[in-house]
């Protein structure tokens, strides 16, 4: 962060702050937990162990195994639950950004490059949607579609595409007027060729930056929906759902809500930190 003033400006620009490395480390752990955790320490939503219910972190369960993070109100291991929840968060976060990003890219390219009435129609649709609180829209959609992992991804992608579309449109709009694009047009290149070869490359970077930030927000949105009972079905683990089900136990078994809530906060914070660093690195104006 505090680079000595005497150091060469070029070096200061390249230096990655320590917090970014920490955040990247945490995220790597999180991805690893999401990928391997459920394999190594499987979570079975159906299996219950009533004699071991509500054990505090570090207790021994009925069958002698150690419950590192305690057990929930049905005697299921909370660590396994949180690991399984991390996979849901990861899947929803990435799938939503890919789906919403793809839709946003398409819409943004069309409206930014062609302008005119397609731009007017698409942008106004986007404005209308942005005027409506995204979480309300998500609640409405999730309520109609019903609880399932696929439906959450669809729901959240619908609420997110506008953000990507706007970023891409802005880039496409400025790239359209660049001289090399004009030259390509004069040489008789088709719209498709110009879009793919000349406009698209300048859209990637802002899109990726927006995507990184959105991954974290999507995870929070998924947890919010699951908290409200509109997210994953009963037999799947989700951090939001676990927080929600544990809130009656805040006075007696605090760990049920606290552990997944901390995990969510940590991961979203780290995604934000990495997103910031990525944007700083990719945008030369940030150094001015």
């Amino acid at each position: 962060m505090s680079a000595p003033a005497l150091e060469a400006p070029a070096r200061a620009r390249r230096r990655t702050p320590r917090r970014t490395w920490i955040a990247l480390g945490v995220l790597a752990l999180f991805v690893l937990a999401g990928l391997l955790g459920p394999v190594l320490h499987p979570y079975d939503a159906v299996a219950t162990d009533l004699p071991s219910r509500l054990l505090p972190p570090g207790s021994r369960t009925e069958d002698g195994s150690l419950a590192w993070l305690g057990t929930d109100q049905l005697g299921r291991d909370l660590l396994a639950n949180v690991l399984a929840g991390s996979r849901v968060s990861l899947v929803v976060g990435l799938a939503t950004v890919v789906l919403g990003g793809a839709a946003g890219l398409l819409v943004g390219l069309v409206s930014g490059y062609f302008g005119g009435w397609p731009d007017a129609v698409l942008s106004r649709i986007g404005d209308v949607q942005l005027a409506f609180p995204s979480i309300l829209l998500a609640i409405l959609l999730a309520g109609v579609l019903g609880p399932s992992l696929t439906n959450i991804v669809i729901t959240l992608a619908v609420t997110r595409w506008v953000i990507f579309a706007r970023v891409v449109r802005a880039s496409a709009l400025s790239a359209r007027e660049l001289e090399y694009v004009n030259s390509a047009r004069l040489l008789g290149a088709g719209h498709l060729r110009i879009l793919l070869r000349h406009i698209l490359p300048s859209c990637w970077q802002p899109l990726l930056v927006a995507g990184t930030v959105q991954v974290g927000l999507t995870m929070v949105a998924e947890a919010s929906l699951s908290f409200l009972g509109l997210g994953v079905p009963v037999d799947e683990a989700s951090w939001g759902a676990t927080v929600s089900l544990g809130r009656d136990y805040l006075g007696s078994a605090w760990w049920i809500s606290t552990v997944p809530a901390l995990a969510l906060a940590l991961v979203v914070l780290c995604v934000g930190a990495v997103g910031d660093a990525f944007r700083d690195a990719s945008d030369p104006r940030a150094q001015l």
Partner: protein
Amino acid sequence: MGTRPVSALARREFLALAGLGASGVLLGACGTGSGAAPEGALRAAFGQPVTDLDPYKANTAVDEATLIVKRLVFDTLVRREGEKLAPGLARSWERTSPTTWVFHLRRGVQFHDGSRLTARDVVACLKRTRSVESAQTPLWEPVVSATADDAHTVTFTTSVPLGALPVNLTLLFIVPARLVADPAQSRSPVGSGPFRVAGFTPSTTVELERNDSYWGGRARLPAVSLPFVAETSSAITALRNGDLDLLWPIPPDQLAEVEGAEGVRVETVPSWTYYLSWFNCSRKPFGDPAVRRAMWQAVDIGGLVRELFGAGAERMTAPIPSTVLGHRAQHPYAYDPAAARRALREAGLPRGFRTSLMWFDATGPLARELAQAMISAWSEIGVEVEPQSIEKAQWLERLNTLDWDMNLQTNTVTTGDAGFSVGRLYTSKANRLGYANPALDAVLAKADRAADEDERSRLYGDACKTLWDDAVGIFPATLVTAYGLRRDLAGFTPAANNQPELADVARR
């Protein structure tokens, strides 16, 4: 650091989303603020929301939360006081022939709007309740007519001898004849009870004020405020810091938080509320009693009730709680997964089957945990059950249209009499769970007719045995209701049917 438009937006949005989760908790707490409640009002919260106050609304005819308010706002001809029936709006009654009952009404009773109670009102109310198809309908089917002999005498004629009539009349709320079908009764109903409705927001709060000209003597507190607090933890906090005077039922897992609290005491009573897990007998494979019994054997009910509820519930020995008239203890189904698997094999289901279980979380304490524990036990014998935790409205809709495989819920024997649950729910005609048994119908009809308590009790005991042996459902636990109340309340008696007499409650 420079300006960071992207992350500023991101943070704001993050906070908005995080705030949403928190506001869900806070909104629940807002209900207890009850700024509108007058000074000295009793603030009492029940675990389920009140949605409608019209006594003849089909959906809420036997809804527990609604009944609590109805008992305070309306009167009935007959009331239940402890084990006995006591006069309400009817001063006295007699059975003049096996199929006729004559009720003599109290004189000088005034409704909240100032009009006087006459026999015509009672007749109109009976007609109305008979014309609305609801969960109460089976109780009123045998009542052919009611006639007003004079201003204060009503004669009920029944198609068959109906011994249960006085008990059933504890559910017939009397309103002025001209208002029986008035839609305004849903929001601001007129009755003759100890309290009148001062304000009502469905699923949020009911504000009642004292009816000073009540015939039975005026209530001891000037007003009652009944907020709905969706969050158990918020409700408990409100009770502990004095925002609530009374809270029930307190879930078993949260009892320890309340018991130790300063200024709060807990009173418990074995309730008439119990869990039932019905099988839809009109759907495969639950048409086969052997399969239903196997499902029961697969669950360690004893262990489950002990571990999950502790002192908060008792294992059931019949399809109704042991304190209800007509209960007869049956042999418990032993926990035997091997026998259950064998029975499934013999029933032609060697590899188990797939089905679903529906419930709504607010139906009772630990409902979700109970459902999941049973699903867990069933998976051991190869039966894969999809958990369907749904909204109450959707649940009611599906329950009433028989659109379910298995259904978990609590049920309260509101009248303390087996006729209300066994007699009402399990006849072939009621068809609540696709179960039809002509032999049982005959026993229930006979019990309905019998005027003698012992005779009725014996016949309902027979019905208990049939339902238990046929395993129409699993009957795991009767709840022990825990009421949490501030120490300065006096005159409170815990009620087994979740409907405590709040007019008798005072502050010390």
